[in-house]
């Protein structure tokens, strides 16, 4: 929806500022996955083991694997996201929110991925009894999705 107006404003802004920089082309964004985030890192194998452990209900093991992976790849948004999911599952929504925010800070420029993280923040806030905060986060997610639509 706002595609049209945004373009107009882009153009207006360009005219006003006389800037020579073109706005970034809105090309298809490559989806963010564990593989794109951790390609070639040994952290990937620890992430796989963390997934298995979680499937088996071994939460302590999953947490340990993920934190080990994080020392190998400390700037991986994906690993913070996984930790946030784990914490949510373990019933620690406050912890989950902090980790999800960290994942957002480190997130690659991908709207769908960021929208997912905002949804995660929303879920964590809802579980902490913060419906307004959850709402705000959900709106951030929606607007990111709309942008891509």
């Amino acid at each position, binding site marked *: 929806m706002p595609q049209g107006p945004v373009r107009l404003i882009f153009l207006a802004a360009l005219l006003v500022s006389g800037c020579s920089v073109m706005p970034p082309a809105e090309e298809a964004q490559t989806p963010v996955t564990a593989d794109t985030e951790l390609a070639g890192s040994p952290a990937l194998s620890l992430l796989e083991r963390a997934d298995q452990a979680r499937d088996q209900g071994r939460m302590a093991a*999953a947490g340990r694997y993920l934190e080990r992976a994080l020392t190998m790849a400390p700037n991986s948004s994906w690993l913070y996201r996984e930790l946030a999911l784990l914490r949510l599952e373990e019933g620690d929504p406050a912890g989950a929110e902090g980790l999800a925010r960290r994942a957002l800070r480190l997130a690659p420029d991908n709207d769908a991925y960021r929208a997912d993280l905002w949804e995660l923040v929303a879920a964590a806030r809802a579980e902490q009894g913060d419906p307004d905060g959850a709402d705000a986060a959900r709106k951030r997610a929606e607007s990111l999705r709309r942008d891509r639509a």
Partner: protein
Amino acid sequence: MAKKAKTSKKRKTSAKQRQRRWWSWRFIGKLALVGLVLSAAGLVYLDAYVRDRFDSHVWQLPARVYARPVELYPGRVLSRNDMLKLLELMRYRRAAGAPTPGSYTTDGNTLVIHTRGFRDSDGGEPSERLRVSLSGGRVSGLSGGDGDSVARLEPLQIGSIHPGHTEDRVFVPLDRVPPLLVQMLIATEDRDFYDHHGISPRGLARAMVANVKAGGLVQGGSTLTQQLVKNFWLTQDRTLARKLVEMPMAVLLELHYSKEQILEAYLNEVYLGQDGNRAIHGMGLGAQFYFGRPLEELEPHQLATLVALLKGPSYYDPRRNPERAKSRRDTVLRVARDEGALDDQAFQRYKERDLEVVPRGVSPLYAFPAFIDLVRRQLARDYPPEVLGEDGMRIHSTLDVLAQLASESALRDHLNRIDGSGDRLNGSVVVVAPSQGDVLALVSSRKPRDHGYNRALDAVRPIGSLVKPAVMLTALEQPKRYSLATPVPDEPISVSLPNGTTWTPQNFSGESHGPIPMLDALVHSRNQATVQLGMDLGPGKVVKTLDQLGVKRKVPAYPSILLGSINMTPFEVAMWYQPLATGGFATPLRSITDVLDKNGEPLARYPVETREVLDSGPAFLIQWAMQQVINDGTGRGARKVLPADLRVAGKTGTSDEYRDAWFAGFSGNHLAVVWVGRDNNQSARVTGATGALPVWSQLMASLPQTSLPEAPPPGVEMVWMDPAGDKTSGEGCAGARLYPMLEASIPEKSDGCGTVHKAGKGVVDWFKGLFN
């Protein structure tokens, strides 16, 4: 008559005699009966006592603390030297083919390491043979048993926690005790162990013969069972009463329990020495205490030394009385050969070996008292003392041995340089992995093995200019009013204090520099400009910022706090610098990651927690400004030591009259706080730059580092600003400087020089933001 009288006399006498005999028989009988009843009752009581105590015996197993296990994976920064240093610390022995756990072999740059295996919350690692290639200061190749790309060495034990009581042991089940140890033990201490029922008349007789021959007490003749009773239930004093109950108790013990149970209890109970107020019990701990290795890995001559100690742990102490210990050890070896436990060839070989005990001081068990102190304090919050003393918990800590050793030598080297006498200055270092809040190293003294005053945790000292980033940050959170380019007057200033006095802070150099960009107030640590800025903001606002960054201590909103008259420990400084290092995420510092029970099952985790306390924009700006401290300012000494392309940030601090020298700074993966000063609070006559920064630089240079992020986050732009700080400018224009600017701070006006900065993008982003 006379005869009669005689006979009567005789009768009388015999009657008397009879009477007397009858009386004494009765007495003896009664006595025997009473004795029988009493001893029966006593036996019943003893029996109940023995069974109850044996069945419910709780081994006092203090919690053990382990360092972070060494992770090996291709690409990990690790030099061959450091790898070998680690193996030596962990007492791996070099042996061709790395045949057993705890051994390794080298082949050029490739090491074959036979790991010991361990349990962890994630299951841990089995013992396996790893091929590790090291080149260019990194792990270049790794292959292991399961073909995985990640492997771990077992964590180094760095201490144990035994609050309240003083018994320490490592429990070893009988099936993990080397059979040779059992054979040696039985051969020397109790040859009839498998045949007797608790007491051994033959053994006693043998001992008596030996004693008579020797003309003194050389053999005790008590069985292992009796010795166990002694160790287990009875006090060490040699009273007759004790001797009296010892035998029946030994018999009762044998009646109820198998030889194996008794043997296992003996091996884990026996007293083997003293380490200060810590009593060394059991073969498992004995192996560690004397040889630095698990019992399973000891060689025959070492096992013999442990058996030799049973005769008198202090008399045969291999450290204090090596000759005596060796001669007794050789006796044990000879008896083992005579009894067929060792063949003659082995006997000849092992009796030639030295005692090979590890010197007490170098054991990693005592090496890091300051860090163990931190672990103890963190544990005490969650576990009562009896749990820590008895349950044999395994505490996995965050200590990075290499970082710890590097910190220790950085502090020691520099203090030796500036205080050769060694008695004036002391210091402390805290090293943290900022992203997870892991405390990697803690040094509390230039003599780090010394127990005692923990300067890192307990030395509460004024932080001086370390506070300045908090003042700047307070300003940067008002982007419409302040940017790093905003001019601040560095001029004499008088502040009226509530007590009626006036405060006139001076610059370190004694000079004032007129209006300077806010950035320079930080980079060159200008006091007058900082106070000016802080008074404009209001000290209360700065206190709020400190609070936001995680300062727990109550800081009064006095003007003097603007120059750091706030007392903190080095550890507290690390706590609030941590969010500065991570771009605004506060993570509680932890020294523990996992707690396992004695069988290696996970009990508790201390997971990473993180909370956003700064927006990405101001967080980036303050980090960038602190980088300039090291590139151009009071911290530039570090540049001589660190790689030119490594982006690091930090701040110096010096308190009044040079009492405290500080440096706190960070890279992408390490935050380190260094304090140098004197315990008596006299002038240390060094500044942050001369006393603490060199320690920080050497330490950071010896650890694998990653750079701080270079790219500004959304909402921040690099902008050329004119010297007055109120107009944008362009590259190459007179006095123009490049600053990262929050969009709200970028002035609309330009000085019209050079290429106009990329304001257009900012406007576009602003519009875009309306729709996002």
